[in-house]
């Protein structure tokens, strides 16, 4: 595949550029617009960000709260760019969650690429992929503009109150609702403000729904009711300039219901915890000690096109850089220890190991 082709075709314009009017929006291919997910690495992986009009579903791991990291950055990004936000969760006081949102990092001199130069001396280049340049998607056309589109969030610094004390944030608790009708009406009212017409987009909206089918909700047994809710959300999203992020724990649902939800998603991600002291995993991957979880990209939204998005890699490690910044990295397999000799044999699928591969989920 000719990765360096510069021909601009009206059908596949893969260059995403920031719009001048609204730095929070970026033009995507096929007449779509992107908004940032709040995580710069995730934006790059997804080809620009979340498409306006799409439904993003995140499959949770009940053993770890990593989906909260994705939600928090998503919500903070919207608030920082003054994009109205609707947040729903099963807690009694969802507004208190806003106090845990991260704040954009203060601009500093260093940038991420300097991390690569920390080993100045002899480098064994078996991880050669790390030293190639960025792929051809030129998200860095305007460095100042790039910064406005997506911020680096400092997870240790809480967001200033003034970002969410105004009218642009709505919090809804679904804890005591007997069904999802009230939430659906809330979402419908919110999305009506961003309905899509042929004119230019003034602003984009964000909806974040956390663990919508968790067992504490009264309707969590009503499979078809929950499916209708998500389906109606998906329908409403398509005709509006908003992105809806919904997290759900698939292990707490019947398998067919979980599959139906996965099909409804335009973009489908899942997060998984990494066990703390897994010696096998530590041998398999480098940088294992710094990883806090794994992110898997199952599906990327394909609005207005039939061509699927095939990624170089679909599993990424979630790390906290300097314990503050969320980064996603490709997994790097550690070099095989020549002395043991049996590593390749046991890592193959046909060895009949009783445990499913640690990276399969």
């Amino acid at each position, binding site marked *: 595949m000719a990765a360096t082709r510069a021909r601009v075709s009206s059908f*596949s314009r893969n260059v995403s550029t920031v719009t001048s009017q609204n730095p929070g929006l970026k033009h995507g291919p096929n007449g779509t617009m992107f908004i940032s997910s709040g995580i710069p690495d995730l934006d790059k992986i997804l080809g620009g960000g979340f498409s306006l009009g799409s439904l993003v579903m995140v499959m949770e791991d009940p053993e770890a709260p990593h989906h909260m990291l994705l939600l928090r950055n998503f919500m903070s990004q919207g608030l920082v760019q003054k994009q109205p936000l609707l947040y729903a969760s099963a807690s009694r006081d969802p507004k208190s969650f806003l106090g845990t949102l991260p704040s954009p990092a203060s601009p500093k001199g260093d940038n991420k690429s300097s991390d690569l130069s920390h080993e100045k001396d002899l480098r064994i280049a078996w991880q050669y992929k790390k030293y190639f340049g960025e792929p051809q998607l030129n998200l860095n056309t305007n460095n100042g503009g790039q910064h406005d589109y997506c911020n680096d969030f400092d997870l240790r610094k809480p967001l200033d109150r003034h970002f969410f004390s105004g009218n642009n944030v709505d919090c809804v608790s679904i804890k005591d609702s007997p069904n999802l009708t009230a939430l659906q009406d809330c979402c419908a009212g919110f999305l009506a403000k961003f309905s899509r017409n042929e004119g230019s987009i003034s602003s984009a909206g964000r909806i974040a729904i956390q663990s919508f089918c968790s067992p504490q909700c009264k309707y969590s047994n009503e499979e078809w009711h929950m499916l*209708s809710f998500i*389906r109606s959300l998906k329908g409403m999203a398509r005709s509006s300039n908003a992105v809806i992020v919904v997290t759900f724990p698939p292990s707490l649902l019947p398998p067919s219901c979980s599959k139906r939800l996965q099909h409804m998603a335009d973009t489908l991600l899942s997060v998984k915890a990494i066990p703390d002291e897994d010696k096998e995993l530590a041998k398999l991957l480098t940088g294992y000690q710094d990883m806090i979880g794994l992110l898997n990209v*199952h599906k990327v939204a394909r609005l207005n096109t*039939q061509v699927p998005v095939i990624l170089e890699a679909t599993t990424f490690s979630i790390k906290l850089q300097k314990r503050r910044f969320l980064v996603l990295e490709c997994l790097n397999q550690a070099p095989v220890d020549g002395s043991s000799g049996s590593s390749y044999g046991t890592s193959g699928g046909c060895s009949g190991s009783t445990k499913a591969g640690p990276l399969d989920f």
Partner: protein
Amino acid sequence: MEQKNWNLLDEALGLNNNNAKPWPLCGRFVLVEDCVDTSAAFVLHQILKRSFSSHPSSAVVFLAFSHPFSHYDRVLRKLGCNLAAQRDNGRLFFLDMLMLQCPDEGKANHDGLASVFEQIERVITALHQDKKFISIMIDDISFLEVAANGSSNDVLNLVHYCHTLTSDSEYGCAFIALDHKDIYLNGDRTAVMLEMEFLADILVKAEPLATGLAKDVHGQLMVLDKETQHRHGVSTVKTHNFHFKIKENGIECFYPGTKI
């Protein structure tokens, strides 16, 4: 008609055999199956495009459950078919069902999917006067099930109704539906899928490659033609297996290992 570039999918569906019928899928039920990893929506797009170019008096009734008109318009335009123009010319009836939700059973105005039946019937009877080759396409049966609140009976009623429309004594329509096979893998609530697989004349199944993701091969297709319309009383089953790559302006189909 201009020279068409038939690909393996067209051949497997029998679309290149114009001598029998101008629109070869008439009177046949095509069931398309896919999974989360590999979407088979491109099969619907291909059939949609071919149906319009098969004969000037062909028409399509499209029940959309998963994507709005704007999406299909853009996708088909890149494939060389102008859906907006077809809609204006009365050859495409796009029924947007994205927000359709039937009231629960037991409620006063529970009528199942009766409104959907009525819409289809109205369009078909109106079309039948001057159009000869009608195709009914349902975007996504699993979303239809959600719209029907999980009532397998209602969904099967609708599928049976559409299937009866394919018989020659009725309207001889073509019926094409897409469903997601991996939803039913756990063995529960398989009634709808089993029934449809039984009724279908042609099964098209899209799966990912066993070896994983690839940039130049997006998956594999299995097309099973039950050849239920046979002339001499001998029914045969034809199976086609090939790989595909989806592009903006079409699909490339090739036998495994023969990618150019």
